[in-house]
């Protein structure tokens, strides 16, 4: 079974019940909920504090403290809250393990490990954990350093919510929205993680083996193979076939899957990342040349490495060598440094640089030459060094918290400046809504290197899974482009789709279980060839099951016959080696059987066909012989000699061994 706890296709959270294990696949945190909140300014913003409260149509003002209006949109004036994965669908304390595929897909981890009674283990690669920690740290830091006295909850009342304008009216499961976790919770959650390496095989209770494979999307990002002896489930999440900084995607190991769970495809299937990088550079150069500043709201890790690398090559040719680049994040320093030390997780080109030895990423050189400067926040050194025009990379891409809020307020009024959106997770129009009216230019060049639908169809042709399971969003064209039937997963048989809070029966059948036979038991077997190439042997053994491993052992030796011929106690009876009855095989051809009966004097034989076989009626003797595929019954009243006679006739048709 698969329990689908998240409706967000790129921030998945699924629970897989496979064999006797319960495995959570990713725990992504849907942060788009924060778009409904007002931004948290680092410096008091007169504009934001002067926004009018929202008044209902009938004039009632009871919500005006909680909801503010800005350019026709209504925002919650409170600490931003996140939409958690579904927690009611199953008891999350029963989850045995959590497998993390990349650092973006673990942001809900503290909510799961610290609030649900979870006692299992989390598996993730080292870069995933380290960079995941940075992302969480930045998130917690950005929110905690702007304490907000107020916590709005009235608007969440179902009756009240109905009265609100969209999109608040349509927000789902608002009662489930939670404030951000704290650093101690983050630390506690991360302490439950066990580090794994690519292709490492991890045994879960002997029943299942899980293996992370490189997915090519981010440092340490993985797809997972979950397999038993006879079933294989592949979990593909956030993968990329493009040549960027991470190790390339391992596709071969995904072959021969019974089920392939496909999540984390590109969110912008119509935008080609190369084109977008070009767009990014061109707009950046144009703005700076005209004396404007460029703001790039981004995460502290991931695409930013590639962007810095592109800029490294581009700035000299574009005559931008004197323009300062600032990277502002509480974790900026760690992120830039971590990226340089995870050599084994990098693409081949970058790995070879390490042996030269050179830093794998060129941002080291940008820092050395003072072209790129990084600061933990706008306070402190940054304010001294700050020179305009400049380019600022900072978080959070939702524009609701983090240092980016400050720059939006600072630069928003001038049309010389440009904000360039490169992260695909948030709608840029929604992100900009609380800053309207805005004079600053806005450019949307989402860079999403994850698989697009053409790549998916090639991948599926290549690895040929028996079944594909994916979020429902992938089984139809995007709602805004209903004619683009090329923008959906196209496979045979059609993919099974799921949505939030749905339970799916995965289409594989457990048919076999592997059992080991101990060598001494195997020695004692006497196979009999019943068909060329097929031999059978009867086995009498004790089935020993522990940790989901099954072993057939020799039965314990019967106790030495006691000297006295005292009768054994029934309870002592073990499956001892008493003379075994032969086993029968074969089938009974009805016509010949009837002829035989007639030969032996049964004259009134009648045959009836049943669903499972035949019934042979001996009317005079009031006797029934039921012939079925795997059983034969002789039903006669108290006529033991007749039964025995009939039995012998039946046995004539069967083989014994």
């Amino acid at each position, binding site marked *: 079974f698969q329990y689908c706890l998240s409706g967000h296709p790129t921030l998945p959270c699924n629970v897989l019940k496979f064999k006797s294990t319960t495995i959570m696949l990713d725990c992504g945190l849907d942060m788009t909920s924060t778009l409904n909140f007002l931004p948290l300014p680092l410096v008091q913003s007169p504009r934001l504090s002067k926004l009018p409260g929202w008044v209902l149509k009938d004039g009632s003002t009871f919500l005006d403290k909680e909801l503010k209006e800005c350019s026709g949109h209504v925002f919650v004036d409170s600490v931003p809250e996140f939409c958690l994965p579904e927690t009611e669908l199953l008891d999350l304390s029963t989850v045995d393990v959590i497998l993390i595929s990349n650092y973006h897909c673990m942001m809900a981890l503290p909510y799961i490990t610290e609030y649900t009674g979870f006692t299992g283990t989390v598996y993730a690669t080292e870069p995933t954990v380290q960079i995941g920690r940075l992302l969480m740290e930045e998130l917690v830091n950005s929110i905690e350093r702007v304490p907000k006295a107020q916590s709005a909850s009235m608007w969440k009342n179902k009756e009240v919510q109905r009265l609100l304008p969209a999109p608040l009216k349509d927000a789902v499961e608002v009662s489930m929205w939670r404030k951000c976790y704290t650093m101690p919770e983050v630390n506690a959650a991360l302490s439950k993680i066990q580090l794994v390496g690519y292709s490492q095989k991890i045994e879960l209770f002997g029943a299942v083996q899980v293996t992370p494979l490189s997915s090519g999307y981010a440092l340490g990002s993985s797809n997972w193979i979950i397999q038993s002896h006879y079933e294989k489930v592949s979990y593909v999440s956030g993968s990329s076939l493009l040549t960027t900084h991470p190790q390339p995607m391992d596709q071969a190991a995904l072959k021969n899957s019974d089920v392939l769970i496909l999540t984390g495809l590109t969110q912008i299937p*119509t*935008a*080609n990342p190369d*084109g*977008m*990088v*070009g*767009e990014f*550079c*061109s*707009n950046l*150069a*144009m703005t700076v*040349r*005209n004396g404007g500043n460029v703001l790039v709201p981004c995460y502290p890790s991931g695409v930013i490495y590639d962007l810095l690398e*592109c800029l490294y*090559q*581009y700035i*000299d*040719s*574009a*005559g931008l060598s004197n323009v300062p680049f600032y990277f502002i994040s509480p974790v900026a320093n760690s992120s830039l440094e971590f990226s340089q030390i995870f050599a084994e997780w990098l693409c081949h080109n970058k790995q070879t640089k390490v042996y030269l030895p050179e830093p794998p990423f060129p941002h080291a050189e940008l820092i050395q030459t003072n072209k790129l400067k990084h600061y933990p926040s706008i306070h402190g050194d940054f304010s001294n060094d700050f020179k305009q025009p400049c380019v600022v990379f900072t978080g959070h891409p939702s524009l609701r918290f983090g240092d980016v809020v400050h720059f939006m307020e600072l630069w928003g009024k001038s049309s010389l400046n440009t904000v360039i959106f490169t992260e695909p997770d948030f709608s840029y129009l929604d992100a900009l809504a609380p800053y309207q009216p805005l004079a600053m230019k806005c450019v949307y*060049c989402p860079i999403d290197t994850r698989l697009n639908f*053409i790549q998916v169809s090639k991948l599926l042709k290549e690895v040929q899974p028996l079944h594909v399971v994916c979020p429902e969003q992938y089984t139809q064209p995007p709602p805004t*482009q*209903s*004619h*683009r*039937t*090329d923008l959906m997963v196209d496979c045979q048989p059609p993919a099974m789709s799921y949505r939030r809070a749905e339970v799916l029966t995965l289409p594989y059948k457990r048919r076999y279980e592997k059992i080991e036979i101990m060598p001494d038991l195997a020695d004692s077997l006497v196979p009999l060839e019943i068909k060329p190439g097929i031999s059978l042997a009867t086995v009498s053994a004790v089935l020993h099951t522990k940790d989901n491993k099954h072993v057939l052992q020799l039965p314990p030796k019967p106790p030495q016959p006691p000297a006295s011929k005292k009768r054994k106690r029934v309870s002592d009876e073990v499956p001892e080696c008493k003379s075994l009855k032969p086993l029968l095989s074969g089938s009974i051809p009805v016509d010949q059987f009837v002829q035989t009966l007639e030969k032996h004097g049964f004259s009134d034989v009648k045959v009836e066909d049943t669903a499972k076989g035949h019934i042979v009626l001996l009317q005079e003797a009031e006797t029934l012989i039921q012939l079925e595929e795997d059983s034969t019954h002789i039903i006669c009243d108290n006529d033991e000699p007749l039964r025995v006679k009939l039995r012998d006739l039946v046995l004539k048709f069967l083989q014994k061994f």
Partner: protein
Amino acid sequence: MTRECAALLPGVCAALADPRQPGLDDTCLEKLLDWFRSLTWFDPTAELVQDNPCLTELISSVLALPEPSPSILSFTLQLAGILASSENRFQHLQQEQLLGRLFGPAGPQGSAVWEEASVRSGWVKGVHSMVLHLPALHFLCSEGGMDVIFALQGDPSLFVASAASQLLVHVLTFSVESETSKPLSTKDCDWPACAQRIIKHIEASLQSSSASHVEPSLKLLTSLFGSCYAAWTEVLWLNIAKQIESFLVAETFQAQHLLGNLLLNMARSPVFSDTEGSFWALVTSALEHLTPVQAGPLAAGLLRLCKCPQDVRIQALTVLLQPMDCILRAASQPLEYAGLLDESVSDPVTVESLLSSKTSCTGLLCQTLAHLEKLLSLKHLRVDLPCVPLLHSLMTILQFCNGFLSPASPLGSTISRNLINCFRVQKSALDVLAALAEKKGCDTVIRSLFDVLLPYLESPNTSPTVLKKAFQATSKWLVRLQELSCSNSQCQQTEKILEDVFLVLQKRLCSPCWEVRDSSLEFLAAVIKGLRDQDEFRQFLLSSEVPRLAENLLEDPESYVRASAVTAVGHLAFITYFAPESPVMGNLCNKENTVAKLQEILSTDSEGFPRRAVITIFTKWLREGCTGQLEDTQQFVSAVIQTVEHDLDWEVRLGGLEMVEVFCSKTIHQLGLSECPYAPVSSAVTSPTPQNLLQVFCRAKLFGFLFRSLCDCDKPVGQRACDILIGLRGRFYPVSTLENPQEIEDSPAGHSIAWLQRTLRQGSLAQNFPTDGSNGVDFQDPESMMLALGAIDLLELHDELNKSSDHMEKSPQSLLQDILATAGTIEENEVDCY
């Protein structure tokens, strides 16, 4: 044959026949055959073989080898064919009993070496060379050669099969034309025996049910009708017309793709195109029955013919437009557009099904679009292209390709799915679009066209190669747009289009992808070329960031981009610096800076392309009179020449010479002299003396450059310099040159000019002009130069320079020596072994 060659030939023949020889270089053997071909071409006598018995010895010793190497055997077959090409030599070889062992039943056909395609090919070529007279033809027919050729038509090697087919055409033509005296009729008995065999063979194989038999005969007919326009070809055709006709309708026939070519070649032949009726009916039927992919080349070919009935032309055009029509219909709501065609020629279902599969869809569209582009480039197309619906269809295709069009029909959805992100189709469609800009009549849709083009220019998803094409199409249509008379609302639309174009151009000029920057600059240069007289355009251009960005790109790290930037900035100068009312250019560099920048590129850029671009643009400026008064121009040219003279890239030096040429003719014109030295001098103008002119040229330091270029190590430079000097001499010595050596020596500069004369005579061969001083030659002294022009035999120099550089090495003698030298190394090696 020269005596030297005749002396070398026996050694060469012996070397060739030596089985220990490693395979000689094939090109050597080819050259040798070429030489023999040239020796035999005009000489029907048997002297060559009689005087050089080594040739027949070579043939017989190769034939005697138990295992001759395939390349030598092939060579021998070809050589024998060439030698046997005249009746006399043929008889000689027959007497030596060689031909039967080469081309008869005792030839190599049965042996293992026949497996080699080169041997079979040599055999076919040999026969082809030989059959130029009747004895050879009869020999071929009587010795079973025809059957071999028939078999080789289906040879696994396409070269051999094709050569065999060509041979049959040759034999057939030769047989008919040399063995008949009266015009042929359809009756068998009238054909000469050999021709009759071939015709029977063709007829029989056309009856066959197997494509492998039919195909060679169709190919044979195709090349026959393509090369022979004799009346008898019609007689042949009448015998097989019915059969060919039946192929068109036979569903199981496998070789339909060959019929288009056959019919096209026939249509080109006056024998068939002049007839009325049946032949053209067959062509019409072919257009109907062949699939659109098969009929496409036929249709495109028919449309280029002068002699073709108009209804057939219209039908051919219909075939080509059918896929475009289908696209239009699939995309649009019923009745929105009338479609391209009133009725279709063949079943529209065929086109629809082709468009429904991805590969055939792109294949068919690319083919159709390529044909349309070619047709549009024809000066005289004898049918009217429905330009507006065609444009609509192209726009539809382009919108399908970027996913901007939501189709109205299920077929449309399928086509859209097939075309999304298909670069090949995008590129072809944009090519046609650009070609359509030349046609009149599309003005009504021109504005909506930009709605399709602009997204291509703007979208970051457009691949660089597609973007380049989109820019090319846009520049052509922008020029067209400006030509339209403007109503008020249209003017506003035009302004909007220009605004959008400049906005996107600005962005593209900043692209990190150099191909994009490059094509953006090319686009800029193209639109300036087309629109520099339009006020509106100039205003938009100058108020945008584009000029500044273009100047920045003069320092681009990529040399191609720098070159394009040079061209763009050079064109931009016509608007900014050279315009009568030079606009105020804000923060833009001034004229001096730009010229200095370009000169800097010319003297220091490490790559050739930017330097070539600079010299080209300077020449353009000069030609358009933008370099100021004579004095300024003279200084400018002088400075450029001095930079260019030592350039490592010969194209730059050549560009410099072109500039000199333009400067000369400009100056002559400016000084009021006629371009033509023989023109009557108008007495009204006080004509300046040639001496004035000479002074100007000397001050500009032309002569040093020109004379030194005569010895340039790259020949085109020397040739060009020589041409220019000859032209100048014509001006200063209209009647005669100085031929009296005494006259030269007597003049003050005589000594140095005599030196120059000598140096050039050697120099043009030695290809080096002394760099250390010029032995007193003063290239800036008008008198000396006058003397030099008169004294040096430029025409002789010209002839010398026009000889190809390998004229020494190409002689047959050196070829024979080469072969002997190669053979010699073997012997040396043998000695080494011992």
